[in-house]
């Protein structure tokens, strides 16, 4: 059986925290460039130019593109034929986050208790989603998540009769409500189906898909496009200053659901749509 030492996981998580925060993905940079071509508002174009310049500075000087370096949200797909040795995997992931945020000069934004609110000073714990998959590899994805956009996210248990239109109305309505707060242009992760907790997970996972890649099913790809057009027609624009680009992309993820249920969740990501992925 293939073995992997937890120290390797720890070091990898450390590097990924820094990488995700400093190096904006080419897909997002490409989406900014495309937006610059279609944005009609001069103020909106000015914002997009500043975002491109900001991403360049962050990469060149290896500093975080945004001061809110987020909650370290980590997806770990563990191959069932892989044996983790040398310690506790979960603890190794947290240690990687601790080192990454310290050595990378990233902001520590986590409080130990939601009501008492004392900073843990090392950005731990991470939020870790484990999954067991076939094979003998460990796939890690880290997606630091800022508070501003997370706070504008929402979940609703719709009625099955609400159908396709119900989902569209909910997502567009929520994006309109969020207005300038989640740092538009945003990326919208939409979960449909499953259960109460599953649908929120789907919405988060939808944010990981590279921008510009539509849903594989034509039905949902069409729905993504329709939602994107409607959200852009709100006129909110880059940073909410007014314009034609409010969102860069809409990604839908679905799951079968109960005959009586129709859960839908919207997880909003800001333009700082950060992730880093490695297979060990």
């Amino acid at each position, binding site marked *: 059986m293939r073995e992997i030492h937890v120290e390797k996981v720890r070091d990898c998580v450390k590097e990924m925290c820094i990488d995700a925060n400093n190096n904006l993905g080419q897909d997002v940079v490409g989406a900014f460039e495309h937006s610059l071509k279609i944005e009609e*508002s001069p103020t909106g174009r000015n914002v997009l130019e500043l975002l491109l310049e*900001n991403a360049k500075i*962050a990469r060149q000087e290896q*500093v*975080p593109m945004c001061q809110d370096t987020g909650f370290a949200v980590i997806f770990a797909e563990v191959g069932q034929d892989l044996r983790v040795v040398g310690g506790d995997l979960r603890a190794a992931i947290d240690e990687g986050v601790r080192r990454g945020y310290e050595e990378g*000069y990233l902001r520590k934004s986590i409080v130990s208790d939601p009501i008492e609110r004392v900073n843990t000073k090392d950005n731990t714990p991470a939020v870790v989603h484990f999954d067991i998959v076939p094979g003998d590899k460990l796939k890690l994805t880290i997606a630091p998540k800022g508070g*501003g956009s997370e706070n504008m996210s929402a979940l609703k248990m719709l009625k099955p009769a609400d159908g396709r239109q119900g989902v569209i109305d909910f997502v567009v309505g929520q994006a309109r409500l969020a*207005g300038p707060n989640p740092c538009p242009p945003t990326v919208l992760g939409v979960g449909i189906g499953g259960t109460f907790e599953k649908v929120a997970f789907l919405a988060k996972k939808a944010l990981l898909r590279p921008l510009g890649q539509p849903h594989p099913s034509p039905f949902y790809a069409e729905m993504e496009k329709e939602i994107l057009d409607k959200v852009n027609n709100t006129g909110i624009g880059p940073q909410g*200053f*007014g314009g034609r680009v409010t969102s860069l992309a809409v990604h839908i993820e679905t799951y079968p659901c109960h005959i009586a249920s129709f859960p839908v969740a919207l997880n909003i990501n800001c333009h700082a749509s950060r992730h880093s992925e490695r297979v060990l």
Partner: protein
Amino acid sequence: MAVKNITTPLAEDIVMDLEAGDNVLITGVIYSARDAAHKKLVDLLEKGEELPLDLQGQIIYYVGPAPAKPGQVIGSAGPTTSGRMDPYTPALLEKGAKGLIGKGSRSQKVKDALREHKAVYFASVGGAAALTAKTIKKADLVAYEELGAEAIRRLEVEDFPATVVNDAHGNDLYVDGAEKYARD
């Protein structure tokens, strides 16, 4: 696109000349403060005590920067969501603050107070934090060191980019801008 260069402290005629939608470059001194610092300032005012800084004509920037790397004046320093400061803002405007910088919508109470006290709310580009940090030339602690990233700092800025969202005349770029570019 016209850009207005403004310097701090903000004189009344400068404030009155600013309109929602104007892009500005700010040079001079601005003060950082987030939720925790706001709460401390307003607590002092409620007890009738002196503030650790004179707010007359000053600009407050809602920011909790990333740690500075060796050789950096300040780490990445973009704005945080302003709405969390809403409950405290009218009291600080009453003490003479003339400008606020953050991101996102303000409450009606804040908008009314901006008109009443002749002050403006600017937004800087949320997330453009590496770029914004480069316009900050000096950062000195003023108060509440124990708050870490949330302490009040005196920031010397040069050509700090921002956009007027709520001017002293009651206009709101978040409302007008969206209306202008909305389609059915």
